[in-house]
């Protein structure tokens, strides 16, 4: 075994190097655990974790969310920050809509000393983040992910400021009944968000009994040709098609439906409410309904906000820009109310919040930490833009 000596030496050197560097950072032997509770720091910028998809097929939405959040951070910092002048800082991490990436991102944010999480887009990726943030006692204000599964987790640090699938489905059904639609086709894109709304709507329709589901189906996102679902819809011939997925595929499906001679109405869920929907769908998008929380486009006095956003980022706001913006503002408010960056205090402050003005209306959390009212309204596409059709009140 003539090599043994050399290997032992190698091992020794490696050990020495490792132990030598151990002194300077948070190893098991070092200070220990300084990563887990960055909230304890009393000065310097306050970090907000934003774990959103930066790469992968959901990357576009991640960018909208990042911009929305950044806008809020900039505004707050321009006003002098919070807690007597401490600045806010976004810690943007990629989730790529993948559990593994999101766990890595969440862990990194925790290690970086984030105080509140204001991200969360793909439900499948957000779910595994919950135990990580919960353990680190970091409140999560989830702007987008709204699967019922998140609510069912019952984690005390989780707050959802997007209407849940249930609330959206209720709004959709109310509108269907108001308009007298008798048969609907429910189409989702096989993501958890979209499927959630589909399932929930189907359930509520069945309980209600006055509308019939003519077709309930899923498509695979990321493709261009949706002739199969178009054929199915034409075959089922519903009075209304309710698309619960995102605008990329939504635009294509609307266009292909119209080309196929579909004459009924189309309604989309909030993931499809985007200026690009009518660009992609072309003329066919005119008259398409949408279930949506209030957006800057539909709110009076929000033109300034849109202008600010455009000025800062050179493009129009997109899906969840507003929610992310509100999530940051809410986080700032809660930290201010709590008077510290301590997780428990912030959670208490969030639970106590009442009437905080957001795009979706005044905020008060339910005991489940969801919005007391989804704030859903019905929009319609007119001249290529979404405008308010029915506030359902």
């Amino acid at each position, binding site marked *: 075994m*003539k*090599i043994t000596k050399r*290997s032992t030496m190698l091992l020794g050197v490696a050990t020495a190097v*490792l132990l030598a560097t151990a002194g300077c950072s948070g190893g098991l032997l070092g200070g220990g655990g300084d990563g887990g509770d960055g909230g304890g720091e009393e000065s310097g910028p306050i970090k907000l974790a934003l774990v959103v998809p930066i790469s992968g097929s959901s990357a576009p939405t991640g960018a909208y969310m990042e911009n929305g959040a950044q806008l809020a951070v900039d505004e707050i910092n321009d006003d002098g920050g919070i807690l007597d002048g401490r600045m806010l800082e976004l810690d943007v991490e990629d989730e790529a809509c993948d559990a593994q990436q999101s766990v*890595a991102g969440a862990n990194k944010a925790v290690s970086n000393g984030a105080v509140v999480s204001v991200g969360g887009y793909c439900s499948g990726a957000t779910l595994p983040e919950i135990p990580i943030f919960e353990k680190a006692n970091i409140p999560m204000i989830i702007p987008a992910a709204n699967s019922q599964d998140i609510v069912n987790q019952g984690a005390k640090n989780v707050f959802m400021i997007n209407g849940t699938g249930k609330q959206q489905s209720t709004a959709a059904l109310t509108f269907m009944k108001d308009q007298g639609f008798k048969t609907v086709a429910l189409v989702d894109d096989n993501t958890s968000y979209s499927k959630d709304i589909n399932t929930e709507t189907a359930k509520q329709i069945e309980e209600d009994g006055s509308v019939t589901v003519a077709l309930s189906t899923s498509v695979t996102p990321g493709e261009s040709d949706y002739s199969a679902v178009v054929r199915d819809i034409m075959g089922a011939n519903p009075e209304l098609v309710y698309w619960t997925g995102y605008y990329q595929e939504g635009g294509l499906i609307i266009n292909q439906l119209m080309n196929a001679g579909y004459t009924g109405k189309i309604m989309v869920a909030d993931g499809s409410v985007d200026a690009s929907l009518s660009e992609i769908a072309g003329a066919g998008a005119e008259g398409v309904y949408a279930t949506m929380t209030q957006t800057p486009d539909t709110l009076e006095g929000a033109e300034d906000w849109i202008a600010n956003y455009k000025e800062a980022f050179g493009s129009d706001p997109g899906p969840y820009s507003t929610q992310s913006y509100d999530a940051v503002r809410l986080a700032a408010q809660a930290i201010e109310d709590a008077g510290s960056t301590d997780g428990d205090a912030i959670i208490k402050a969030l639970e106590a919040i009442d009437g905080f003005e957001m795009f979706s209306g005044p905020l008060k959390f339910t005991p489940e930490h969801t919005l007391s009212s989804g704030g859903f309204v019905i929009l319609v596409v007119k001249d290529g833009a979404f405008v308010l059709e029915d506030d359902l009140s």
Partner: protein
Amino acid sequence: MTENVDTTLAPKKVGAPQSFLSRVFESRQLGWVALGIALLAPFVIATPYALNVMTTAAIFVLLASGLNIVVGYCGLLDLGYIAFMAVGAYTSGIIAKAFELPLVFTIPAVLVMTVLAGLIIGAPTLRLRSDYLAIVTLGFGEITRITANNLTITGGPSGIFGIPGLFEVGDFDSQEPAVFYYITVLVVAAFVLAAARLGKSRLGRAWRFVREDEDAAEAMGIHTYKVKLLAYIFGAIWGGFGGILFAAHLSAVSPQSFIFLQSALVLMAVVLGGMGNMRGVVIGALVISLLPELLRDLSDYRYLAFGLLLVVVMVFRPQGFWPARGYEPERRKMEKLDPALKGAS
């Protein structure tokens, strides 16, 4: 086993590399050194993020070592390897959650399911030409993911979450990041060692014979089909255990984790590291899993950088960083030469 190294027979030109560095790299103890470094790493840095990244990397090493059996040893191009991890992760996740069992108790079920998956995917396809095998495995990978996405038992698109930990004994929590990291490293080390040992056995040689020349192997009495199927099954088992660790690590399993990109990444680890050489593959796996994390700050550009890097590395080092060298001791039997051949040539 290394005594009696008699290199006098070897002409310099074709002999084993002699440089100090090569000797170190070829050293048998290198694996223990690597394990030592892995075990000591948390003493240097133990933030949740670092532990998470290191645990992920370790699991990735396990996957790469499993794929190395299939691709590196046996030369079967598998573009859907991640499906085996999906089978393992889903099986253990579903069972553990349904019966509220610690994950270790799901190991038998995972074994059965992954072997079954290996058989189902391998049996009809292993007679195919290698390029066809590539596309078929890719197809199986996608089928697995889409099926998981469409079924109710797998939780549909959001997958399964809230999966119990590996085990829990009193106050000892296996899910404590540092503890879990150590468990992972030890399990992975055991599997890597097992894969390396398999590679140096009769079965491992049969795999290489099949990789090098299937007809010649067949002429030597090797049932190439059976041998390939075994490679597949071993690869599947390795993937399945990767899946258990994955499920335990994230406490959640969702279809998005098993997209084609993941299969491609594992394959890259194997090829970049050096096909067939377990040490190279381990290094390759570490590079592939750690590099995107290091490039995390480049955000938008990280996969661009990654892609370009792959091309550059492959153009300049197509055999991978550390290819299998294929040298062994020239050791001769110390007995007398057969008298019959004295005078021959």
